[in-house]
């Protein structure tokens, strides 16, 4: 895969308390007292956490603890009810205007989304396009690549995910595992610097899981990407991440390297959770 391009946009709302950005590294992420409610139900209450530039972090935790919500906030599929979310040295949901922090407009969100890519649990390929079109539509329409450039990029990515022969196939003709590979390629075609993975193998038949996980592991190793990953698969979490965050009720219960969290968790709640996951 070609090296990742640096963003050229000026740093509008640079701030001294923003996560530092190593030169040439993808941006880090910071949640600062983030609140998210659905009606009466508060899913995240003043959540704080950091992901360093280029760090790969796995979120684990019981169902309904807010893991997906965190990723969806970063992908701008949900909007927060309070707090700040930083990507690099800019806030995602706020922008600076005349020295004041105001809610982001569509243009700001569009700028910020350039850095972020997401792979969904249910793949969500576009059924009205074939595989090639799924991979080129974003680069052509959003990044402004020529069709030839976009197709070259798509071919490289299909080679990478091992589906070069499916280039003209229709998504519905692919197996779940193949669809998820295409979806991964589609996200990478946009050259994101932050990659969000939400239980990307849980909709797959068991025999297809390992292939997709190994592909993602290789991608994570060969590219400089900040990765936020939700998974219940310990082997995958160990392979892909530098650090694991254990969530419960919208708070971080425990964090540490995967070996520690999975090997000798210090919190009872983590132990209970891991036991429950292992039992299934």
């Amino acid at each position: 895969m070609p090296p990742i391009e640096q963003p050229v946009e000026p740093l509008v709302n640079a701030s001294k308390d923003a996560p530092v950005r190593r030169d040439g590294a993808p941006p880090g992420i910071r949640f600062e007292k983030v609140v998210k409610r659905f009606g009466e139900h508060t899913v995240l209450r003043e959540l704080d956490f950091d992901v360093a530039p280029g760090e790969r972090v796995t979120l684990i935790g019981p169902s309904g603890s807010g893991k997906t919500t965190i990723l969806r906030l970063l992908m701008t599929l949900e909007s927060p009810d309070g707090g700040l979310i930083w990507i690099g040295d800019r806030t995602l949901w706020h922008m600076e205007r005349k020295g004041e922090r105001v809610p982001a407009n569509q243009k700001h969100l569009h700028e910020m989304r350039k850095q972020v890519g997401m792979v969904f649990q249910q793949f969500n390929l576009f059924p009205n396009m074939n595989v090639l079109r799924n991979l080129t539509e974003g680069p052509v329409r959003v990044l402004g690549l020529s069709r030839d450039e976009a197709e070259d990029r798509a071919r490289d990515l299909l080679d990478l995910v091992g589906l070069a022969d499916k280039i003209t196939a229709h998504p519905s003709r692919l197996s779940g595992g193949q669809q998820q590979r295409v979806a991964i390629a589609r996200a990478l075609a946009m050259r994101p610097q932050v990659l969000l993975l939400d239980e990307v193998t849980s909709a797959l038949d068991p025999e297809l899981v390992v292939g997709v996980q190994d592909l993602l592991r290789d991608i994570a190793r060969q590219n400089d990407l900040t990765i936020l990953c939700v998974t219940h698969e310990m082997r995958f979490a160990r392979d892909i991440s530098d650090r694991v965050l254990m969530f419960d009720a919208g708070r971080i219960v425990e964090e540490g390297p995967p070996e520690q969290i999975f090997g000798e968790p210090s919190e009872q709640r983590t132990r209970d959770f891991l036991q429950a996951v292992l039992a299934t």
Partner: protein
Amino acid sequence: MSEVLDSYPQWVDGAWVTIRLTLLGGALALVLALAFGLAGTSRHAAVRALNRVYVEFFRGNATLVLLYWFFYALPLIGLRFATLFAAVLALGLNIGAYGAEVVRGSINAVPKAQHEAAIALNFTPFQRMRRVLLPQAFALMLPPFGNLLIELMKGTAIVSLVGLVDLTRVSKNVQGSTGETVAAFTVALVLYFVIAQVLQLLVRYAERRVDRMLGRGLPARPALDTAGVAGG
């Protein structure tokens, strides 16, 4: 019977008027349906209200009342339409209101995940609609659009009441000149039936093409995972 058939130039002309009205009215209805249907999916309440007013008013009215209004009432306040134009307007506005509901419903029926995938690829709101939602919604729209087109074709018969010489009018004229009541009206009904069947064939053909485009209706693969395909 032979006398009735001898007047075939009249029948051909009448059928042509009926077909032309169907196509023109259909084109207008399609444009209105898309415009107001899209308005119905807007984030802005004011734009959605526009959709409601249009739909309730023109769906709630009888086409013939609309036609009479354009033809008899509006000229009195200085708005004069050519008869054909008034007819196309009445038919298009009425069927367009039904179509707008179809468009709105179909767009809303595209799975939300498709919309989110388009956001994740950083498509603009316009691109999401144009590249992802509309093409998928289109497949859902086609069958009801086919029914509406047939209803529109049937609706064109009202123009015979304001002087346009369509199939219905021709049947009445032929009945008057030949006195062959049974034959005249039977021929008219059969011609309408033929037009309706042809329209239906065209719509079916379009449905099959769109289904193929969306990868539906293909022989199922074993362990085929159809998650994410519109409508399942």
